[in-house]
Each structure stands twice: as C-alpha cells, then as structure tokens.
C-alpha cells in the first residue's frame, strides 16, 4: 500500500529540463507528481504527441473566450445559449464558474439561460461583493425580465452565503427565486449516503 506523501522536491531525474516539465504539469488541476511524471515521460518520448498538443493549446487559447453576456466558455460572443431562440430568457440559472454550465448542458433538460458569477464571496481569499458582477446580474434580470432565478452554487459556506447575498440583492423584485435541492444521489445506495446529506434529504422529504 502506498504512503501518502507530500511531493518531494529533490529531482530524481538526470535532467533539470524534465524536472521543470514535471513540476509544471503537476501544477495542473487533478495531477499529482506521479501522474505528472508519467505524462512528462510520454511527452518527451520519440513518438510524442507534444507538437500537436502545442498547436491545439495555442489555437484554443486564441479562440476560446467567455461570453460577454453570460460568462460561459465559447468561441462566439455572445454564445449560442444566449442567442438561441429556443432558450427561455426569463429563466436564469446563476452558477459560480464556467465549468458549472457543462453538467447542465450535458444533461440537456435545462431550457433557460445562465449567468456565471466567476467566483463566490470569500473575504479570506480576497473576494468581496465588489469583486463579483452583481451589477451585471441585476441589469440582466431587468433587461430579460427574468421570471425565475435559479441559484446553483456549491453547498459550501461560501456558496450558501453568495446565494443569501443574491437573495438580499433581489429582495422586493417580482421574480421567483429558487435553489437546487440536495439529497440522495440517484442510483446512490442509501447505506453509503453521508449522515448530513441523509438528514437534509429527510428534512425535505416529500409526499407521494
């Protein structure tokens, strides 16, 4: 069984260049030093996909941008979701980051539009209300005559507080404010549900 260790920084390679590559890669999200090393060795091997990758990275960086209207990742600005006639503009889903749009779009059930906040309130990380685009959110609500605003933020202290802030921001306006429910994941075994999730699911139990 492997010991959990802090990455050691004594270079085990006979190449400082390789060491630099490994360090760079291990800073990417989800990559530990071990997988970074595997990838680095793969990239410097003779049949390496590195050139192709470099090209793809360059192109993506040049073409991908955030939608000026909703903040989603897109090549066209405004994005397809914002321009589509079939999407209901009075239904607005507020998410923290552009990646949070992806699961909704993949599931395909959602017919409304999005607003990406780009972060959550967190004074400890230097994120205050002026650092998030709440003005633009308000303008958007007015312009599109939003009828329902769905808050889909993390169930963390920062996510909840940001939701509470939005709630206060919109107080007194004629729109329905809702948030995602929490509960037992579909296909998840009850026996392995953590106690807190279970208690919430119990609290918000519903009739048949």
């Amino acid at each position, binding site marked *: 069984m492997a010991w*959990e260790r802090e990455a050691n920084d004594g270079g085990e390679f006979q190449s400082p260049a390789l060491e630099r590559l490994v360090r760079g890669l291990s800073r990417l999200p989800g990559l530990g030093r071990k997988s970074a090393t595997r990838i680095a060795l793969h990239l410097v091997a003779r049949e390496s996909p590195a050139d192709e990758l470099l090209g793809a990275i360059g192109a993506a960086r040049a073409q991908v941008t955030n939608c000026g209207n909703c903040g989603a990742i897109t090549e066209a600005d405004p994005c397809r979701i914002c321009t589509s006639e079939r999407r209901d503009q009075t239904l607005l889903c507020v998410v923290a980051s552009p990646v949070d749009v992806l699961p909704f779009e993949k599931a395909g059930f959602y017919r409304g539009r999005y607003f990406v906040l780009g972060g959550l309130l*967190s*004074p400890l990380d230097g994120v205050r209300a002026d650092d998030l685009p709440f003005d633009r959110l308000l303008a958007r609500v007015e312009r599109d005559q939003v009828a329902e605003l769905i808050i889909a933020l993390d169930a963390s*202290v920062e996510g909840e507080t940001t939701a*509470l*802030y939005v709630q206060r921001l919109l107080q007194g306006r004629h729109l329905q404010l809702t948030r995602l429910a929490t509960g037992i994941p579909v296909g998840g075994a009850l026996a392995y549900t953590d106690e807190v999730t279970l208690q919430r699911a119990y609290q918000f139990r519903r009739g048949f």
Partner: protein
Amino acid sequence: MRIVTARLSGFRNLSEAALAFSPGVNLVQGRNGEGKTNLLEALNWLALGRSHRGSRNEDLIAFDRDELHVALELEEDAGARLACEFGLDRSGGRRLRIDGEAVRRRTDLVGRLATVFFDPDSIRLVQGGPERRRQFADQGMAEIDPAYLAHLTAFQRALKQKTGLLRDLRRGAVNGAQARRELAAWNAELAHHAAPVSLGRAEYAALLTPFADRIHRDLAGTDQPLVFTYRPRLESVARAVSSGGDAGVENRSGNHALEQDVSAEMDYIVGSEIQRGRPLTGPQLDDFEVRLGGPDGLDLRTFGSRGETRSAAIALILARSDALDRRRGVRPVLFLDDIFSELDRERTRRLQEMASRLHQVFIATARPGDIADWRPEGLKAWRVEAGRITDIPADGGAD
C-alpha cells in the same frame, strides 16, 4: 466497545509490543517518565486522529525511528471485531487501514473507536477558560450527532470569513450599503449554523447533567446536586433555550424562527462590529456553568476548591460515556491517566469501585499504594519500565 489487542512499534519510547487486554480493568504501573501515558496515547490516537495531549504526529515517532505503527483489534458492543491500523512517518505520510483495507479519508477511521480520556489536566474543564468547556460539549455532541459536527465546522468557517470581512472593512474605505448587505449575508449563513450549534449545546448540557450528578454523588459522597448549564452569548438563543421544549435532532437544524432571530441579533450590532473590526456575539463566546448545590449553587469555575473542582471534572467527563451510551448505544473505552494521585483516599476508593463497574478501563498510576489491595474481577496489570511493557501476573502483587 473494547480494545481486545494492540500491536505497537516505533511509538515514542515504547518497545515493540503485542498486548492482549482485559475487557474490564487494565492497570498500567510504572514510575514517572517510563512510558505509561505514551501507551494510553497510542491506544487513544484513533479516537481523535491525533494525540490527546496535542502533540504533533511527528513527535509520536520514536526518536531513533522513521515511522510508527499501531494496530488495534476492536470489539464493538454487538460483538463484531474490527482490525484498525494506523502508521505515521516523518515526511507527514499517514496510512490508515480497516480490516486490512486501506482507507483514504481520515474520517472513515477516526471516531470508529469511542473513548473518554481523563488526566490531571482535565481539571481545567472546570477551572479553565470557556473554550475548554465549549470543546468538551462540542466533542460530546458531535459523537452523538454527525450533523452537529457539520454545522459546527461550517459555523467556524463562516465565522472566519466574517472576521476577515470585518478586518477588511475596518482597514479600507467602506461602501456602506453594500458592506451591510454583505455582512447580512454572512450573518444569515452564520445564523443557519449557529442556531443548531446552540441548540445542540443546550441539549448536551441537559443530557449530561443527570449522569454527571449521579457519578458526582457516588464519587464525592455528597447530596449537593451538580449542574452543568449552558450559558449562550446570544440573547435570542438564551430566550429560546429558557422557553424550554426539548429541541430534539429534527428541530435543531431547520429551526427557521430561531435562525431569523439570531441573524437579526447579529445584524443589530453590525455597526459596532465594523467599528471594532471583529464579531462581537455568537456561539464562539458561549460558556457553560458548573455549579454545586443546584442551579443557584456554588460556581465551581471560580469558587471551587481543588478537590471539588477535581470531582466535578471527573464526573462530567465520565458522564460523556453515559450520554454516548444513552443516545447511540455505544460504550466508550475509558482512560484514567494519573487520576488517583489527584484524589484523597476515600475518593480514590470510590472511584475504584466505580471503575470496576465501568466498561473497559485503562488506569495508569505511578503510585502502587493507590491500588494496593484492589483486585477487581478480570483485572490485568502491566508494568512499564523505560518503555518496556510486561504483564504482572494476577497473583504477582502490585509492588
């Protein structure tokens, strides 16, 4: 819950050892500095996932070793056996196993062993500052109700955030309306967790008091009732608690009326908070009273004699075991480290009597006289000398 066997290696000054314990009383003898507390510390580590005396994990590794390893076989109250292991190394590595399988998350293993630990420092539960009492109640409530722990953790996180915000506001220019809205959002989130935390603390004090009183009467041979009373800082909480009603788990979270009152109470003083640059109310300022002679009796926090304080602390800590049994049907393993040296003869005798009736208990003492002539059923005795643990045969006497 019992510890059936233990294997130790590389733990502080203790030699490699494989030990099979008594399901009842286990007595650990040895002069000061020989390693008695180290043994108890090794056995208790899994309960908290850290040393009970607050040592860093690295300091637990024997000076001349690079890693330590402890394996315990536990028996749950229903009779199921569970093999738990932990290993720590000098580079911060940690491995945890249950029944031979590696577990990633610390929380999967920590807490599987329920214990109650008493040592001479525990007297500060009564005499020390309020933080000790809050921690005591929080730990007790958390082992009864995991949702309590979740609320407490979230509360502490939100409090740090709000403190950070107030610090910012004091330093920088303030956009008044927005700052207030921002603070109101943090207050609402805080209240969402502060309400269940407060009700949980009230519930725990009420749950604990009769058990503690009972133990205290037996131990101190007194008729004076011992009470452990919750003293919340928030007035809205104080009102809710005194207006009574058994909150119960279901009502503790999701008590919207109380959440709103708490949040309003916090909003009300926001001006002074901005001025002072820190939160001025909330459960982080709660305390508990320990009184002898009923709710208006002697406040032991300030007026207790050393003997009274000691007995009250022992009673409260032992009561945690009864509370856990009552609410979760779990009987924790008890550790009493150097406890007799703190008591007079009569109380020592009474505590010994209680200990023989208790669940599994580990008692460490440096004074053989304290335990002379004490032969509870199923007793096992161990001697620790310079880290070497040997068992003292049943008829070998405690010399």
